[in-house]
């Protein structure tokens, strides 16, 4: 059953979305600041004296009795600060909750329901967006008589002016989520609409909601401070803004009374900073790529950047014990030079340095001969794409070549060490000597540039001496080679079909007549008829131009048809390598056999397949489905 996969899946990092942010220094500092200020706002007022009490001492600097000094009228600044913090936090929290509820209502419900409701809701939020927020707040506050301007009024005004931005963010996310299969599946199961929104959709929006909430709180505290500073804040309430307002009116700055205005300013800045830090951590859940790699690992990586020179001698690798599942004699030992080879990979290992390191490519040796098609067959996660990227030196941190060598045997007889290239050498090597057609290459073309501009770009970079006319001629010729009308040079990618775009990508890869072309699942996304046409073109070109192809795919039957030799990769290792005929006639590794059996023949016998409509006799004759797998697993283990 899945046991073949189970071991593959195990070392793979968990890719699912987390509900809670990862504990990081950023988050710790952010939460620390928020907790301290929050506690101060909550408990501070009980610890200090009456903030309103007027003493006949005027403006005094901090002292033992008044830790933060006093105001113009002799009021204790520390006491005021405690009450003001409480007031600001209260308004911030209130507005945060109200604005988030409003934005969720208008953003999520509208876009899920769709139709007129969505149109109306998004019109409303767009209107709210174009109305400038703070001026509106000022106008509204100014119209409400000062006596009726309590904290709640101010909070409602701030919430009404502040929800629209996050409603738009939530709407966009909901629009993308509502078409996910799991939402559709819930509908097929018969879930009611409110349950689909509340139970299936909303939890997946939680990180986004949380970050919008934090954002709303910051915005509210700042806006309220601004309003109060202008004297438009809540009447009879103490917030950090009113404190600053009084300080301003009391000429604190001019009189050098820093203790009056610095503490409230600092609290606002620190609290905003704390919330922002928390928001960073929430963003990392939404987009895991933002997560930074701990610095310690980064340093390690730099140290092990160039192990190649050392390993080139081959001495280090002699002691390597190959894993039992690899057919030792079926895989050529890369240390013996292959005369006809154009590309040799020796004992290459690539590791993803993540929390739990993933050894994506383990001790792989390959020799690609001039003009041959080598099929690299494996399933998802077996490391075949990582290998291709490493050969191109396109792998990026956290991926890293930990050992081995890659050598290109140039046409003029020179051997080039790919891993030792510096930037300029690498630029000259890529595309000129070795080019690649990427997975999903149909979408690899830039949508805003014409085909011609994109082909031309390759030539201007690599053949600076070519004239404009020559470049045009060459581009047209390349298109003609892959069976695309050169008139399509003027076309934009969206004007071409998927098959044509793929042909253009192949033309681009062949533009500089490289010696090696890497094809990473070049036809997987295409329909079979289109795939057939492209493959035929490729075979014809290979005969005409004589480049070697490393063809990466999961489709073993396809490889049996088109390639000369086949390497089967599993779990980072090449488990078997042989000519296509040998693989077809007598596969030796159980995994290869299993792969072969996985593709029922179109015209041949039905094999182990049981059709549902068949009678009981034929069922009894068949072994249960799991048996064959268990056999392989057992076999692979005993080897």
């Amino acid at each position, binding site marked *: 059953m899945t046991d073949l*996969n189970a071991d593959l899946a195990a070392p793979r990092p968990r890719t699912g979305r987390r509900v809670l942010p990862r504990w990081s220094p950023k988050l710790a500092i952010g939460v620390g600041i928020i907790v301290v200020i929050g506690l101060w706002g909550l408990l501070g007022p009980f610890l200090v004296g009456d903030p309103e009490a007027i003493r006949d001492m005027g403006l005094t600097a901090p002292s033992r009795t008044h830790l933060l000094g006093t105001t113009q009228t002799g009021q204790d600044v520390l006491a005021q600060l405690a009450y003001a913090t409480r007031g600001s936090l209260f308004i911030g929290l209130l507005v945060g909750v109200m604005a988030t509820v409003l934005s969720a209502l208008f953003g999520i419900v509208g876009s899920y329901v769709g139709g007129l409701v969505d149109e109306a809701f998004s019109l409303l939020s767009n209107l709210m967006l174009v109305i400038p927020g703070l001026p509106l707040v000022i106008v509204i506050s100014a119209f409400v008589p000062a006596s009726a301007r309590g904290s709640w009024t101010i909070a409602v005004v701030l919430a009404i002016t502040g929800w629209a931005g996050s409603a738009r963010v939530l709407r966009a996310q909901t629009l993308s989520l509502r078409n996910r299969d799991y939402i559709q599946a819930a509908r097929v199961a018969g879930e009611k609409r409110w349950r689909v929104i509340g139970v299936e959709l909303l939890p997946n929006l939680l990180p986004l909601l949380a970050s919008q909430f934090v954002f709303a709180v910051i915005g509210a505290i700042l806006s309220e401070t601004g309003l109060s500073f202008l004297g438009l804040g809540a009447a009879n309430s103490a917030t950090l803004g009113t404190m600053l307002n009084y300080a301003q009116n009391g000429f604190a700055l001019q009189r050098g009374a820093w203790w009056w205005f610095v503490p409230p300013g600092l609290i606002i800045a620190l609290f905003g900073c704390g919330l922002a830090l928390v928001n960073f951590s929430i963003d990392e859940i939404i987009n895991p790529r933002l997560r930074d790699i701990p610095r310690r690992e980064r340093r390690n990586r730099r140290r092990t950047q160039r192990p190649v020179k050392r390993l080139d001698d081959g001495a280090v690798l002699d002691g390597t014990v190959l894993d039992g599942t690899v057919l030792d004699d079926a895989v050529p030992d890369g240390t013996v030079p292959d005369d006809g080879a154009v590309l040799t990979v020796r004992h290459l290992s690539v590791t993803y340095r993540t929390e739990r390191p993933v050894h994506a490519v383990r001790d792989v040796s390959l020799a690609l001969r001039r003009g041959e098609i080598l099929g690299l067959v494996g399933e998802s996660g077996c490391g075949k794409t990582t290998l291709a990227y490493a050969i191109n030196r396109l792998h990026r941190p956290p991926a890293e070549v930990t050992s081995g060598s890659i050598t290109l045997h140039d046409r003029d007889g020179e051997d080039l060490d790919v891993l030792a290239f510096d930037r300029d050498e690498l630029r000259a090597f890529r595309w000129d000597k070795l080019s690649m057609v990427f997975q999903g290459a149909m979408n690899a073309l830039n949508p805003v540039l014409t085909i011609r501009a994109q082909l031309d770009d390759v030539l201007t970079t690599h053949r600076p001496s070519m004239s404009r006319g020559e470049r045009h001629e060459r581009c047209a010729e390349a298109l003609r080679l892959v069976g695309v009308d050169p008139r399509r040079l003027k076309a934009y990618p969206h004007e071409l079909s998927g098959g044509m775009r793929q042909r253009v990508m192949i033309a681009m890869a062949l533009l500089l007549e490289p010696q090696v072309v890497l094809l990473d699942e070049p036809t997987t996304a295409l329909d079979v008829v289109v795939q057939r046409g492209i493959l035929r073109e490729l075979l014809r070109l290979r005969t005409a131009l004589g480049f070697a192809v490393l063809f990466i795919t999961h489709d073993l039957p396809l490889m049996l048809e088109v390639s000369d030799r086949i390497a089967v990769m599993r779990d980072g290792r090449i488990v078997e390598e042989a000519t296509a005929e040998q693989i077809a006639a007598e596969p030796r590794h159980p995994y290869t056999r299993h792969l072969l059996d996985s593709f029922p023949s179109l015209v041949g016998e039905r094999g182990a397949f049981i*059709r549902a409509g068949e009678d009981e006799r034929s069922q009894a004759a068949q072994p249960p489905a799991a048996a064959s797998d268990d056999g392989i697993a057992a076999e692979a283990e005993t080897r």
Partner: protein
Amino acid sequence: MSAILEVHDLTKDYRLRGGLRRPVLRAVDQVSFTLTQGRTLALVGESGSGKSTIARILARLEKPTAGRIVLRAPDGTQVPGRFYRDHVQMVFQDPFASLNPFHTIGHHIARPLRLHGHDRAQTARQVDQLLERVSLAEPALARRRPHELSGGQRQRVAIARALAPGARVVVADEPVSMLDVSIRLDVLQLLARLQREENLAMLYITHDLATARHFSDEILVLYRGRVVERGPADEVILTPRHPYTKLLAAASPDPLARGRAGIGPDEEIGDEIDAASAAATYDHYTGRWTRPQA
């Protein structure tokens, strides 16, 4: 063997945005078929042939522009619309997208059970039973979340979910195309076994001729929303009559056809199939070509 689901002249038009005339794209054009207890019907076609649209209409995720869908109870009477989902369920293509990352495996199977009239105690028992039936008998699996499972395991969960309401019709939309090749057959075998055990009617939607032939009893070949060939699975694949079916068969990779790469269809589909033959349907049961009435 009785008909469960009858589809008559199903048609679906999509209005394209833009342009004053609002052009219409006909995704499905007068498709009719019948799903029968214990038998599998395969819908075969390439991208854009309308096969997924048919699946979505059958799952009531979209409304057809024209045509009728009749669901019959075992006694032959028509099942009223509000009970439709008790009988017809769907397995989605991408097991990585069809399970909610936030919820546990148990939730995914318990919800349909609860929705279709099981109480709490029954549900807990049934969840375990269902997981066992799709060969996922690991302890505590129900408490795990989708990202902890492999693609094959996820698809098994999705199958268990489709069976949970006691469905008699299962629409499987490319159920294995997103899975690793080495486990595809296992999942298909599982579907076939469950079908036998439950006597399900199955609609298997695929672009893969080989599995369509081996897995189903009857095949409908779709081309641009229309059925161009229909008949028993082996006949359609081994002796195709319509030029499009021939083209598809010739282009499919076949492990037995080593060295055949140079052969195959010349050009892309559009050139090969002229309008006249695209509009004609070959029926292996009657042995006759039919054309739609104007």
